[in-house]
């Protein structure tokens, strides 16, 4: 009786492991189907860069205009920008975003570390800035998948911008 139950448990655990493995395979496959295709989503727009998919300079500048307006009304991050030269900031950010989305620009301004040094931007402010950025893209009618692809390039910058 006991052995029978033990065997059953063994079978059960094995089956469980098998199921988990199957499940993980599914997850990985799902992921891989995806990782094989994101850049192949270029396929449907024949090798378009993210810069082109966003809508090039006019769209980027439009996002930045919206962003600056939102920052102007924001009480979490505005203090950082109170003394900023808006025209200069817009210009530099436009080139930076053009560059980071594989557009035809070369950003040769200061590094993210150097720019934000001494600002002591905390994680909450950074994350909030990202949300303002999302709202700005939303206001510019950038589609959700394109928004995410741009965010994916900005998110890793956090460690070189915060707590500097």
């Amino acid at each position, binding site marked *: 009786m006991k052995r029978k139950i033990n065997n059953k448990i063994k079978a*059960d655990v094995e089956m469980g492991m098998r199921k988990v493995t199957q499940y993980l395979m599914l997850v990985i496959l799902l992921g891989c189907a995806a990782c094989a295709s994101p850049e192949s989503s270029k396929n449907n727009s024949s090798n378009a860069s993210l810069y082109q998919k966003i809508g090039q300079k006019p769209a980027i500048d439009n996002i930045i205009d919206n962003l600056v307006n939102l920052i102007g009304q924001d009480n979490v991050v505005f203090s950082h920008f109170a003394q900023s030269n808006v025209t200069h900031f817009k210009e530099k950010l436009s080139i930076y975003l053009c560059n980071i989305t594989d557009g035809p620009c070369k950003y040769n301004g200061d590094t993210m570390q150097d720019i934000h040094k001494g600002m002591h931007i905390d994680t909450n402010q950074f994350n909030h800035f990202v949300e303002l950025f999302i709202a700005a893209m939303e206001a510019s009618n950038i589609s959700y998948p394109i928004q995410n*692809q741009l965010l*994916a390039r900005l*998110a890793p910058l956090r460690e070189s911008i915060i707590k500097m």
Partner: protein
Amino acid sequence: MIMNKFTSIFYACFFTVFSLNCLAEGKILATPGVSQIEGSGGGGIVPWAQLAGYATEESISASAACSRVTVKDFSLDSCGVQANFYDRIELSYAKQTFEVNPLKLDLKQTIIGAKINLFGDLVYTSLPQISLGIQSKRLKTSDVAFALGAEKDSGTDVYIAASKLHLGFINGYNWLWNITARHTKANQIGLLGFGGANEKAKIQLEASTAILLDRHLAIGVEYRQKPDNLGLGENHWKDIFVAWFPNKHLSVTLAYVDLGSIAAIDKQTGWYLSTMWYL
């Protein structure tokens, strides 16, 4: 009764939302997930590495959730509260009432949970977020558990969880995965006590994965291994869910669940509905 609990929590949140507005606004909508049935931040049945609520390193957040699972012969009501301190430590408390329809009785369990974020950030670091958590469980009504052969009416689960959100990963859609390894002796998550004559495999694997269809809507699946200490053919749990996040103060999750066999009564499939409020 449950409705009363709902309404009082609702009012408490409603008023606090207005006075503490924007206390913690630091994560992208939906990314902290919801509250799982044992009260920890996670999916529906699996605790995730992210801590409940929208707090960041500089803020504190509180949240509350109530859920109901109804399967063929059982239902489980669960309400929990969570506090997130600086996105480093999560404390949680949950109360469960498990209705056993064939016996016309209720089993009650309380769970105190704690989780610490060891390193990483779900969204902003390239490595996954890793957290270590415990769930300390006490079964208030233990007669059924002991009658079925459980050894104890309390126990502590310890788990380690890894989660990562990949922005724009699936053709521009955000993809989340979580894997949790749990050390547990709980029978049916503790509702049927802890331990038993057939105690064997102690580390259970759990996994969740989800895709965000837009800023407000996530769909996903979960899987949770469970031990069969009582030798009653306890099955692993799975579900497929859709979660809606209209804003940073509310989420609603609906899932189809397959809980397998419970107390040797098989084919326990049904629905899960959960609402969560965030401050």
